[in-house]
């Protein structure tokens, strides 16, 4: 008998795979994409952070179960890889971490400290003292606008501001399409990392009101040093809309590898949250621990084992 499957740590994984069309099923225990001519392509599901399923795919029950067992996030995406729906372990798998995250978000003092840490990591310097979260957001907005303009100038891209309409994809200009495709890649792996670390994607500190608020919080820290320059670089070549996505994904994969993002992202989440200076809550003394010990995990804290 083979031993049971376990998820492996985020840092040992490849960032993402986009699957364009085909039936996704399990054959002999492996995750396989079968196209309509019967060609089978094995996907090394356990060593990938997230699988992006494009509109031409169908996923079987067994395939989804296998993805869950090895802790790989399945993300159903629309055009340019923009996320529609994901299945990992929505809501997170660790009550202690969720309570810790919620406690930080509920406490105004702690939340401000976390937000300040996010800006500090992002801009490489401490934000001005005695500012509220709203004021910090204002400073950030102006800086982001400036960064876009500077990058557009550096790569020689004509830039008329960040504009996109998810309902009318084709009306967006090339730089905006490239940016959307690039940020979609980043959001995918960030969500996978947040879930793997055992936190809730919905509980944000700067962002709020979206199922991925915390994903945007964390992704924004590294966005302007990773995927945004990549998007402008590709946009500068002025590729046809049909090729832009592929080129952006190739370049994103490179930048994720070069920046070792998958290895850094979970420690970064921990660093940001620990800035709140709150102790993670202890389990209540009368609470019942798991009846069966699952043995030593190979994966991250938030993975089911």
């Amino acid at each position, binding site marked *: 008998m083979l031993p049971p499957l376990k998820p492996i740590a985020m840092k040992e994984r*490849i*960032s993402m*795979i*986009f*699957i364009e069309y085909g039936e996704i099923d399990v054959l002999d225990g492996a995750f396989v994409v079968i196209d*309509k*001519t*019967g*060609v*089978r*392509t*094995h*996907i*090394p599901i356990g060593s990938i952070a997230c699988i992006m399923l494009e509109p031409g795919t169908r996923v079987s029950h067994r395939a989804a179960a296998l993805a869950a067992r090895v802790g790989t996030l399945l993300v159903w995406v629309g055009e340019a890889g923009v996320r529609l729906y994901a299945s990992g372990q929505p809501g997170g798998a660790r009550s202690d971490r969720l309570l810790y995250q919620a406690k930080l978000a509920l406490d105004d003092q702690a939340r401000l400290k976390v937000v300040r840490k996010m800006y500090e990591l992002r801009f490489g310097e401490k934000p001005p003292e005695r500012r509220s979260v709203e004021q910090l957001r204002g400073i950030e907005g102006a800086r982001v606008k400036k960064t876009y303009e500077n990058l557009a100038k550096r790569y020689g891209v004509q830039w008329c501001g960040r504009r996109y309409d998810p309902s009318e994809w084709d009306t967006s200009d090339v730089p905006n399409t490239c940016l959307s495709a690039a940020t979609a890649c980043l959001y995918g792996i960030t969500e996978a990392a947040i879930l793997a670390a055992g936190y809730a994607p919905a509980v944000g500190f700067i962002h709020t009101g979206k199922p991925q608020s915390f994903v945007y919080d964390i992704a924004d820290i590294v966005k302007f040093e990773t995927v945004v320059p990549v998007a402008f670089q590709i946009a500068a070549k002025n590729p046809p809309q049909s090729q832009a996505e*592929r080129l952006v*994904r*190739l370049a994103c*994969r*490179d930048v*994720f*590898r070069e920046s070792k993002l998958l290895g850094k992202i979970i420690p970064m989440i921990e660093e940001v949250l620990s800035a709140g200076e709150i102790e993670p809550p202890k389990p209540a003394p009368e609470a019942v621990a798991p009846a069966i010990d699952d043995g030593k995990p190979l994966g991250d804290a938030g993975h089911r084992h």
Partner: protein
Amino acid sequence: MLVIVTENAPPRLRGRLAVWLLEIRAGVYIGSPSKRLREFIWNQVLEGVEDGNAVMAWNTNTESGYDFLTVGKNRRVPVDFDGLRLVSFKPLDEPDKAL
């Protein structure tokens, strides 16, 4: 680290590969040559494989950490997934006859 797997290769190629590499199973060779030697060895494979087929894999600094080259006809063919190389397994029949 380098691995070469040959199938249906002529004995003279298999002997040749064993000059630089270790044959740990029938048709499976390992070694850790430099880039130049790797290219030299692969050239030997291209020249000597005849009706057989071979694959060579080695470690790189790409995201997957490896790359590979193939030669000859095989049901397994490399495919590119936005920069990540995977392998498709062709059905036995002609592709357009199945389904």
